[in-house]
């Protein structure tokens, strides 16, 4: 009769031990980090695999084998209409690729990504990609993975800084599962998302990426994304051809990025009431292209597989490459849900195959078939468009599992990267964020900002000028002040800075009755010509940047604006404040004594 109490007592002890274990886990951050990295990796892997499979199933129902041609026109239009409405009304943060949004979450929003955004990204991207919209699944997967990490960390009560650290961990897991390249996923997470290859989250990112990759293999088996023949360097003369491929890839990448950004700028200028229907422009474009050229539907990895086998003719690869540039640019610019990661690979493969075919026709005995060039072209376009050269080299290496491809890849990638940097200043994700008024920090400057940030010298902006004020009135108000530059703001929206000398010159020229807005527009136009953008700072930038920018612009006062919205004035930084922050003023005082 003593058996039941013994079993009961045993169970209680087991529960107590488990409770202690959990409590220990909560308190020991190293262990918790380890457990969460594995848990997030597994969860993100499972969700991303479901995302891929569900999208595939939906696509096979929308486009059954031997289906009628009209489906190819109608499906993208309906898909973009439905997702356009959902993105406008229900999931406004799920629009676009997901990479800039993930970076914004890390650097601006303390790592917060809402559950609604994750659901929106999953549903809208799955629908739009299945309907044939010419965008990729990798960027959205990264956003979904990062969002899952953010939600899990938030719900577990982790602090803001800790949530922020876990977001790239989720992103790496997602890319590892979506692209089947665990090492490249780690590098992408550090190089692109964090912008810092020395980020202290390396261990966690590796763990989550590996776990997600294991989940992918557990469910789908060891099936590579692309099937490629073993790579061989036929003759050293091929290095020259690979450099030429780098030139073509660099120029093609710049063309694609510029077209996409220009189209997006045009769509953004349209009335806000049209935002929900704008994606349909992408749907119609893809529908019409897809009716005549079915390969334009979706991301087109099956065509990439074909071109890697060298199965497509020169005119076909040229046509596919050009049409894809147009289709992806219009789809993305019009606001459809989906990324540009996959299409970049497609465009690169076609450019590579074209160069390879021409080279093989001219030097048949000294060059490999077009498949090898298509493979290198994928990495080249990735380096030119996304601007992560290290990730692109490792990614193609992982796809081929062939070491001999590394050197041609490096040559081609570096040439494309260099050309792209010269002709298109901001990398694509940074430029997209800029268009949204979000200024994300670069890795270079974040390293410098670990010293003394602008926020240490920040002060409230005194005497903000209204744009409707007359120049004469404004001068009367500010001429007695020690400050020499003034913020102009309209109902909380920061418009720019005006120097006292600008106001005085305008009055002296007889333009005292001109409005401050008109004078500001003139001044900004002149400044834009000089530097390309109006001078400003962000609170987390290094203070040294403030000095450099003051020297460039001849302003001794600079506005400090939000990264999330450049029209939100947070305060100003003056030259004396900067010097004081460095302790120069105190030193001068002592010298004087």
């Amino acid at each position: 009769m003593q058996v039941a109490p013994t079993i009961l007592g045993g169970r209680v002890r087991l529960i107590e031990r488990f409770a202690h274990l959990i409590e220990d886990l909560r308190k020991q951050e190293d262990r918790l980090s380890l457990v969460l990295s594995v848990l997030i990796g597994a969860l993100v892997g499972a969700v991303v695999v479901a995302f891929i499979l569900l999208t595939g199933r939906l696509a096979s129902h929308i486009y059954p084998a031997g289906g009628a041609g009209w489906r190819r026109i109608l499906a993208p239009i309906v898909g973009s209409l439905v997702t356009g409405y959902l993105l406008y009304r229900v999931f406004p943060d799920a629009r676009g690729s997901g990479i800039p949004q993930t970076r914004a979450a890390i650097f601006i929003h303390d790592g917060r990504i809402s559950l609604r955004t994750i659901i929106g990204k999953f549903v809208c991207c799955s629908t739009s990609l299945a309907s044939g919209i010419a965008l990729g699944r990798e960027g959205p997967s990264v956003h979904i993975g990062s969002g899952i990490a953010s939600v899990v960390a938030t719900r577990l009560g982790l602090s803001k800084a800790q949530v922020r650290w876990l977001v790239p961990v989720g992103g790496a897991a997602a890319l590892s599962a979506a692209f089947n390249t665990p090492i490249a996923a780690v590098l992408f997470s550090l190089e692109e998302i964090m912008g810092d290859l020395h980020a202290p989250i390396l261990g966690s990112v590796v763990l989550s990426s590996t776990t997600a990759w294991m989940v992918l293999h557990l469910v789908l088996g060891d099936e590579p994304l692309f099937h490629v023949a073993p790579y061989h360097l036929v003759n050293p003369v091929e290095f020259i051809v690979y450099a030429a491929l780098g030139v073509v890839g660099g120029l093609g990448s710049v063309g694609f990025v510029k077209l996409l950004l220009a189209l997006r700028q045009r769509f953004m200028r349209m009335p806000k009431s049209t935002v929900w229907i704008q994606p349909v422009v992408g749907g119609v474009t893809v529908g019409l292209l897809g009716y005549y050229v079915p390969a334009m539907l979706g991301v087109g990895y099956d065509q990439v597989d074909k071109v890697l086998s060298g199965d497509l003719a020169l005119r076909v690869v040229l046509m596919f490459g050009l049409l894809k540039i147009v289709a992806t640019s219009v789809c993305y610019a019009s606001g459809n849900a989906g990324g540009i990661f996959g299409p970049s690979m497609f465009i690169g493969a076609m450019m590579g195959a074209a160069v390879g075919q021409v080279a093989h026709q001219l030097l048949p005995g000294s060059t490999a078939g077009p498949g090898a060039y298509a493979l290198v072209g994928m990495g080249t376009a990735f380096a030119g468009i996304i601007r992560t050269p290290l990730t692109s080299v490792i990614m193609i290496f992982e796809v081929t599992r062939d070491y001999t491809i590394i050197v041609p890849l490096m040559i081609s990638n570096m040439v494309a990267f260099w050309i792209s940097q010269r002709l298109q200043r901001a990398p694509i994700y940074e430029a997209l964020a800029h268009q949204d008024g979000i200024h994300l920090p670069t890795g270079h400057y974040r390293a410098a900002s670990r010293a003394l940030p602008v926020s240490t010298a920040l002060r409230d902006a005194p005497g903000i000028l209204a744009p409707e004020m007359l120049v004469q009135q404004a001068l009367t108000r500010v001429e007695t002040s020690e400050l020499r530059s003034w913020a102009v703001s309209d109902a909380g929206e920061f418009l720019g800075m005006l120097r006292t000398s600008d106001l005085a010159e305008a009055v002296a020229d007889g333009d005292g009755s001109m409005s401050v807005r008109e004078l500001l527009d003139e001044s900004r136009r002149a400044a834009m010509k000089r530097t390309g953008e109006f001078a400003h700072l962000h609170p987390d930038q290094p203070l040294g940047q403030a000095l450099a920018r003051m020297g460039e612009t001849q302003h001794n006062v600079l506005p400090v604006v939000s990264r999330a919205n450049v029209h939100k004035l947070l305060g100003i930084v003056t030259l004396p404040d900067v010097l004081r922050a460095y302790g120069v003023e105190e030193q001068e005082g002592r010298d004087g004594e």
Partner: protein
Amino acid sequence: MESELPRVNGSIGPHTFLLTLTAVVGVLVAFLSLDFVLARIERTETSAHAESLFEEGTRLLAGNHTEDAIDRFGSAHAMARDSVRYTVALASALLADRRAAAAEEALTPLLLSHGSAAPVNLAMARVMIAERRPQDAISYYHRAIYGEWAGDAAKRRDSVRFELIELLARRADSSALLSELLSVDATAASRETRLRLGKLFLRAGSPQRSIDVYRAILHTRPHDMEALVGLQESEIALSKARLRPSAP
């Protein structure tokens, strides 16, 4: 710097923490289950589609529509790259279209994963013949003979051996030919096979063995005309050989 990673800020209690962790594991299990179900459906549908493409390709190849057949076999192969049937069919169609290099490219990865599969080795042997690499072809024929066959293995092995024998006979490689013929001689039972053997022994320069084969046939079928003619030819060849002056 790993120590900067997660540190619970104490905003939730241990029970909520445990519940959240349990919920996360629950969601993980749910998604994994969904993944396995979806993957199974996907695999079933893909293999059914691949099979229908393979059948269509076989029909097209029989109707001499080689280009279309290659397209169907290629699609089936893309859906199930590990399938020996689809890959061999694709390689054979490519070979029929005089695209030996492409056929070799299709077969090479499969040989790495299915090195002992006899049909793959046989297909590769044929590719090697088309590429005028007889020595490699002989090697692949041997692998096909001693490889794994599904179904009637003995019959298929004999058929492959005769294909190899034909190659050796064309190359006039008497010693290799004789060695292969002796292997078949031990197992060949049907009249047709033995008649063929008799002719081939003669081509291999061994009329005595040819005579023995024909006599064995005539022992059970004394009026077999083909065997009688073969025997006569072999005896003439043997006489000529005896009359030929021997080497000093």
